[in-house]
Each structure stands twice: as structure tokens, then as C-alpha cells.
């Protein structure tokens, strides 16, 4: 502070307590929203069921050996921190499937990623989680296609195709890092997963195990930082 002037923070002390509090709360709101790159608070129309959220968090944590999650909802201060290097902001995101068109042997799942993250973040890891119902004796072969909108945004193109043999009920994971990175670098937000299954077999969305087995994509990302040039 220039000589004879008060430090910027000293001004707060002179305010009436209620005004003081209102200013601090407004500052806190503004600070959090700007750091999350949000212009306004999100309006939540369909909050996720607690069971679905907990299952997804547990599955995601199970992939990381250093992390744990409690049996109830995590309490304040118990969220394990991420591992930001050199002050870079990191994100973990869970995107739950929206069901699309389906037939007796095919189902489409749509995953929509947040606009604030696309384009300005680097994808470190992205994993698709699917829960399969019991396939019965012998197992079933499933074809999984990742579809992305073409550059014009009119048609869908196949980004990758893979086959999976399901022998028992449970969760399976699939690395979708390249597809999500490609999606983000195009500024696109929507990833479509097409599953071809044996006719009559219950697809992941129709598994009948309730919301806690809803398909999701877990993404780990970090904010892109501009390259620095140092002069000595």
C-alpha cells in the first residue's frame, strides 16, 4: 500500500456487521463461481439418486488405489483431494447416460459433457462403466461403438469399435480417453455409445437392477495452462 494509505483489507473493519457479512458472502459466491468458470449457479432439475451417485463414486475410487470412499454420503472435509501439480486445477467428472433410440438388439446411450470444461481442459483419463445383467450359460458377445458428430455436426461417425465377451453379471470398463479428448478438442459435448447385443438379452439400461447400476463415464481432466517462456 502506498505510504499513508490503508491496506485494501482494512476497509472491511469500518463497515457495519450486517453489511460486512453481506459483502463477504457475495465475495464468496463470486469467487467460487468464477473459479468454476460458471456465470451463474447451475439450476438442478433432476438431482441424481443418492444410490446412483454413491455407486459411481465407489466404482471410480476403486480404480485408484490411494483413494477410499465411506459407506454413507461423504461428509465435509472427507473428500479426498486430487493431486494437482504446480497449482494446476484438476477435475473429476461423472457423466450419466441419457437413453437414446433402441431396438431389441441395439441401444444408444448419450453422454453430455459440460461446456465449461470442453476446449480448455486436457483429458487425463476417461472410462466408460457398464453394468451387465446375467448373460446365462455361455456368455454373450457385445459390440460397442463410440459415435461422434462429424465436423459439420450433421451425421454420426464411428470413432472406434470394440467387442466384449460378457460371461457373468457385473461392471465392465472401457477406456474412452481418446474419444473424449477428440470430442473436447472439437468443442463438442456429446458422446454416443451404441451397443449391439443379442436379441432379447437385457441391455445395461434395462438391467432391472435399479438406478444404482446406471451407465456412466468417469473423466479425469486438468486445466490447460499456457506455455511459459523463461528468460534468464
Amino acid at each position: 500500500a502506498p505510504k499513508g494509505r490503508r491496506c485494501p483489507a482494512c476497509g472491511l473493519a469500518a463497515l457495519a456487521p450486517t453489511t460486512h457479512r453481506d459483502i463477504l458472502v457475495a465475495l464468496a459466491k463470486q469467487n467460487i463461481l468464477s473459479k468454476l468458470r460458471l456465470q451463474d449457479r447451475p439450476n438442478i432439475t433432476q438431482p441424481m439418486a443418492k444410490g446412483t451417485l454413491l455407486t459411481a463414486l465407489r466404482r471410480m475410487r476403486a480404480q485408484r488405489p490411494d483413494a477410499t470412499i465411506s459407506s454413507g454420503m461423504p461428509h465435509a472435509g472427507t473428500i479426498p483431494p486430487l493431486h494437482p501439480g504446480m497449482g494446476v486445477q484438476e477435475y473429476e467428472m461423472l457423466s450419466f447416460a441419457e437413453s437414446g433410440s433402441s431396438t431389441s438388439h441395439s441401444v444408444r446411450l448419450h453422454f453430455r459433457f459440460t461446456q465449461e470444461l470442453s476446449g480448455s481442459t486436457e483429458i487425463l483419463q476417461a472410462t466408460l462403466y457398464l453394468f451387465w445383467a446375467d448373460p446365462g450359460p455361455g456368455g454373450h458377445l457385445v459390440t460397442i461403438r463410440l459415435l461422434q458428430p462429424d465436423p459439420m455436426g450433421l451425421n454420426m461417425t464411428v470413432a472406434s469399435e470394440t467387442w466384449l465377451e460378457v460371461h457373468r453379471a457385473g461392471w465392465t470398463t472401457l477406456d474412452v480417453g481418446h474419444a473424449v479428448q477428440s470430442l473436447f478438442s472439437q468443442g463438442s459435448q456429446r458422446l454416443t455409445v451404441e451397443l449391439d447385443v443379442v436379441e432379447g438379452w437385457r441391455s445395461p439400461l434395462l438391467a432391472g437392477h435399479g438406478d444404482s447400476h446406471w451407465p456412466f463415464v468417469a473423466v479425469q481432466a486438468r486445466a490447460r495452462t499456457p506455455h511459459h517462456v523463461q528468460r534468464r
Partner: protein
Amino acid sequence: SIDCRGDSRMCCRKEFFVDFKEIGWEDWIIQPEGYHMNYCTGLCPLHVAGIPGLAASFHTAVLNLIKANNADATMDSCCVPTQRRALSLLYYDRDNNIVKTDIPDMIVDACGCT
């Protein structure tokens, strides 16, 4: 670092908690329940200037020399955060996805005079 108490007017850390329920944000911020928006306040006479923890450092020696030789310094000292940590948030974004992030430097843990 000193936490503010009673009638102390010297540089200290004031605790301030913003409860997300009170401001109507509990529907989109899943965890934590609030934000410890601590801040620094109080006076910093020139003789106490110097960041805590640098007592025997070269920097302190230089600062003391400047103070000794330049009583009419052109700058005053300010009470500022000297130690901060990240705020971990688990929240819903605009597309109903669930995001977890650590916002760096959001919580003031210690204050000191510049």
C-alpha cells in the same frame, strides 16, 4: 499466525464460514457443507513486517536493513495471507454431471505482515 480474538487490533486471521444451506446452494454443491472463507485483518506497524517463518533468513536480514536505514519508507506494511490451501468441491454442473475439483488457494490458513 495469530487468530483474531476480542479487542486485538494487530494483524490476525479472522474465521468466517459461509454455510451453503444458508445461501441456498446446497442443491448443487454436494460436498462440503460450506466454505471457510477466512481472511486477514488488522494493523501492521513497520517493526513487525516480515513474513512469519523467515526469522533467520537472508530475506529477513535484508528487510531489517531496509527498515533500519529507511525509516521514512515509501511503502506501508499490509496484513495478508501467508499460507493458503485448496477447497475441494463436489457439485452438479449445468448438464447434471457430477464434478469434483480442488480450487487452489481458496482457504486462508495463516496471515502475516508483508
